[in-house]
């Protein structure tokens, strides 16, 4: 089956009004460079784990920034922390640090 990134059961809308942005703000406050992402997809394209699974770092951290935390921790557990993404990121984002930070913040979510 083609995975279009959504299903019928879950509400698709990202509801910023009702999402709790506290953790997202904490994450951004600790590593403000994450906001510099221009969504070029270099990280995902070079991703060792993304080559083998549907793991998409860009999508996960963007959703987290919008307050969509569901499943983010489990997704990030697919990351091998190899660091290729950090080497290619044109905005100089400390991607490995971000992975660890989001996991730390959302670990108990």
């Amino acid at each position, binding site marked *: 089956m083609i995975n279009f*990134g959504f299903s019928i059961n879950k509400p698709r809308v990202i509801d910023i009004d009702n999402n709790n942005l506290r953790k997202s703000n904490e994450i951004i406050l600790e590593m403000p460079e994450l906001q510099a992402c*221009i*969504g*070029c*997809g*270099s*990280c*995902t*394209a*070079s*991703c060792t784990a*993304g*080559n083998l699974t*549907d793991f*998409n770092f*860009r*999508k996960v951290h963007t959703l987290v920034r919008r307050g969509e935390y569901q499943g983010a921790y489990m997704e990030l557990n697919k990351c091998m922390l190899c660091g290729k993404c950090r*080497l*290619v*990121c*044109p*905005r*100089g984002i400390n991607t490995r640090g971000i992975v660890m930070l989001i996991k730390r913040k959302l670990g108990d979510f």
Partner: protein
Amino acid sequence: MKHIVIIGGGIAGMQCAVELSSLGISATVIEKEHATGGKLASWHRLFPSFTPAEDVLGELRLKFAKAANISLRCGVTATEITPRKVTLSTGDELECDAVVLATGFTLFDARIKEEYGYGIYDNVVTSADLEDMFNRGEIVLKNGNKPRRIALLHCVGSRDEKVCQRHCSKVCCVTGVKQAIELKEMFPTADVFNFYMDIRMFGPGYEEMYREAQVKHNVHFVRGRISEVSPTIDGRLQLKAEDTLTGRPLKMSVDMLVLLVGMRANEENAELAARYGLQCQESGFMKPQDNFMHNVESNVEGIFYAGTITSPKSVGETLNEATTVALRIKDWLQKQ
């Protein structure tokens, strides 16, 4: 008669000299190469109207040749620059009333982005190489075949912290779309893919050209930066990117990859700044007094900037600015 020394014989320097001449001010243009025209001399056609660069340069050269009180010194460089005197590499000293710096920019060396394979794999070329091929009228792969699938990658050496180039080079987006159309015109059956981050169509007619590329020429636009290029067994190039609009990794093989290289500040800019008390921007381009009423004046009295020495600019913008410089100089000389 007042006399101005212009350093750089590209289109900015030439236009500035022509305009100064028409204002009754004499000028000497210093050019390090053996001919005028700068980077434009090797360009094929200009966006968005596909005007041959030769037409623009030809007209400018003609005006330059006809204008009174302009002298040209080719094959020399300036070794010492002050607002009242410029020393040349030949040892000659030129007395003057003001100096215009129109030394332009450097093309980004695509070999620095090693993962794109420029200089490693055949058929990875830069936008400048492609213009050169257009000029020669033949676009062939190393094995002599015609390309059937071509990818163009935007932002090579622009907006990239990893090569210490934070700034947007402004013209590559438009160039990329222009070259895609030209390629499609040459090879109507070929597939052309543009890999972009943001498409910045800032000028008149650019957006229309973009739309034309999409609708009329069926150029494909993929939103995602290519992260790696590797050779395939049959000698083609395999690209890896993320198709960010679908959120999925994308790989494809192409016959040819065109890297739209950005504009980099000249390395000498830092030295200019250090030696003569001028100021550089973070990007390495020179810093004018401000962006508005004094946008062509340096912070040193009597030294002016024209063209891409201060930031990436299109051909049209550069020509306009060169005219502005001439007017400002006249103004400034009258106040002296």
